[in-house]
């Protein structure tokens, strides 16, 4: 069986600046994979390549065994959703309208969404517990609510794969948990999820596979417990990281925190 998403000896560079070279990754159906790594290591670029927005210098990316670059935008949107990090909302549409936009890949150029499309958008919102937002202006709801609305819109596309670019950035503690919980529920429904994150702890919370990225490619790929060792994290992020284990009611919980220390070369404060 072919992998849902497979990245084969892919390289990418902006002009002369190489971002990563010769990376390989297979993602199976229903898997959640978390891309971790320092700023500027090319996590988002990799998502964009998977989504067909950026073009590889060499190598191939396959979705269900098909080259991404050979697929049209509509076809891509039907099989893959993308929840962006940066997002400007110029017009105060109702949240329901924003969710309904997810039906676009299933409607022709001259079509407008039907009653069924609206019902579908509404029921997805209800199911996610954000039904009460339907008639609120999208520009007036909180950042966390907006993120959930965008996830609902992506679900409206009916995709099998969802890409998340730092889904919890700019969110407060509770909303981070809410979004992660939503992602975990989607994963348990069989969706394939690829997300980038700046929070290593999120990988444990989602008990996902982790692809740890350094400045020229993957450092290690595997289950969170195996990849997220003190040594790997410390080397990748360039600071000392401690991994702790705690006991919750039924299972172990891992978490990591950075260790503060003044730089030893005396260049600090």
């Amino acid at each position, binding site marked *: 069986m072919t992998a849902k998403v497979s990245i084969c000896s892919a390289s990418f560079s902006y002009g002369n600046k190489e971002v990563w070279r010769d990376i390989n990754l297979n993602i199976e159906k229903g898997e959640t994979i978390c891309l971790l790594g320092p700023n500027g290591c090319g996590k988002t670029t990799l998502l964009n390549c998977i*989504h067909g927005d950026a073009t590889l210098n060499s190598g191939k990316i396959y979705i269900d065994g098909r080259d991404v670059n050979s697929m049209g935008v509509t076809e891509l949107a039907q099989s893959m959703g993308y929840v962006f990090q940066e997002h400007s909302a110029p017009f*105060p549409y109702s949240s329901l309208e924003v969710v309904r936009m997810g039906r676009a890949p299933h409607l022709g150029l001259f079509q407008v969404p039907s009653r069924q499309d609206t019902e579908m958008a509404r029921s997805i919102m209800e199911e996610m517990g954000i039904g009460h937002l339907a008639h609120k202006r999208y520009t007036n709801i909180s950042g966390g609510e907006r993120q959930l609305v965008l996830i609902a819109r992506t679900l409206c596309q009916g995709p099998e794969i969802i890409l998340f670019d730092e889904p919890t950035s700019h969110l407060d503690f509770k909303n981070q948990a809410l979004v992660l919980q939503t992602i975990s529920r989607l994963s348990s429904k069989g969706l394939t999820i690829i997300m980038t994150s700046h929070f290593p702890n999120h990988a444990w919370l989602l008990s996902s596979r982790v692809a740890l990225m350094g400045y020229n490619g993957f450092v290690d790929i595997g289950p969170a417990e195996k990849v997220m060792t003190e040594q790997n994290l410390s080397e990748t992020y360039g600071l000392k990281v401690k991994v702790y284990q705690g006991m919750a009611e039924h299972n172990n919980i891992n978490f990591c925190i950075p260790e503060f220390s003044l730089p030893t070369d005396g260049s600090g404060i």
Partner: protein
Amino acid sequence: MRTTSSEAETIPIEKYNNLETEIDEEKVSWKKAALLISLPFVFFFISLFLGRLLIDPLTVIKILAQNLLFIPIEQTWTDTAETVVMRIRMPRAIMAGAVGAGLSISGAAFQGMFHNPLVSPFILGVSSGAGFGAALAIVLDGSLVMVQICAFFFGIVAVTITYFTSRIYKTTPILMLVLSGMVVSALFQSLLSLLKYLADTEDKLPAILFWLMGSISNVGLEDLPVALLPIVAGSLGLLLIRWRFNILSMGEMEARALGINTELLKGIIIVCTTIISSSIVAFCGIIGWVGLVIPHLCRMMVGPDHRVLMPTTLWVGAAYLILIDNLSRIISPAEVPLGILTALVGAPFFAYLLRKTKGGWG
């Protein structure tokens, strides 16, 4: 509404529901809709008996009934009155409505596409190009038809140059379109200035200046089909893709993620708006502010959803320009050029709207 989470917790739920954040899209009140729909007809009818030759409304109805519905009515009016109503005022009012509708829907289309409230239908240089074309024809002693053809042609040329200047890497980023539009406008503006400088000050220069002010008094019954066809076709195109504006306004990258071929969509929008606006400019000169003000006004009335907004802008735009054209005929014995009046009314009105919407989107 911006509240911190701690503030939000202190507001009870019932109070939340009353805040203006609630919008119920399915309900547009009947009264509002009826008023909106009847407005252009009312102004249209008024325009038929207004003017230097006052014709009373009843006579106008009789003339219309006889000429349009072929009801035999005993003629109690002069032939002049009939000619004025049927051959001068009616085509003019129809053209005013079409021009208002065309400019407004193009404005709404571009504001949605560029997601910028300051965008007018002329952003891609169509008016500068058409202005140059018209001036060129006037300087070269062209007939009125020649002026119109030249204006139409150069309007399209200007937009085409803008489009291809902005193309980088086989795509046309929105920002590049705006910047190229500025460049091309400036280019044609300077060429226009050159023509004005060279033009004979006795008759050519005034003709150019008068043309640039914009007026629909030149449009007669015979011109109507030619003038209306591009406006109707372009508007129909924009109406058909109206829902896609919602998606495009979220940004190009997101629109692509939602399965939209943004290059194709932008192409369709540019073609539709360009045939509308260059046809308008060719027949009526440069009529500013309508395409800027009306979409804002309509967004305030019916909200930002382009499915409703686009047809509303079309209709309200038509009513607005018929009204302004009526004003232009009655406020002074010598008719005030329409372009001057739309700016005179439009600019303060726009300022008022901006204040009312607090610089936002209504």
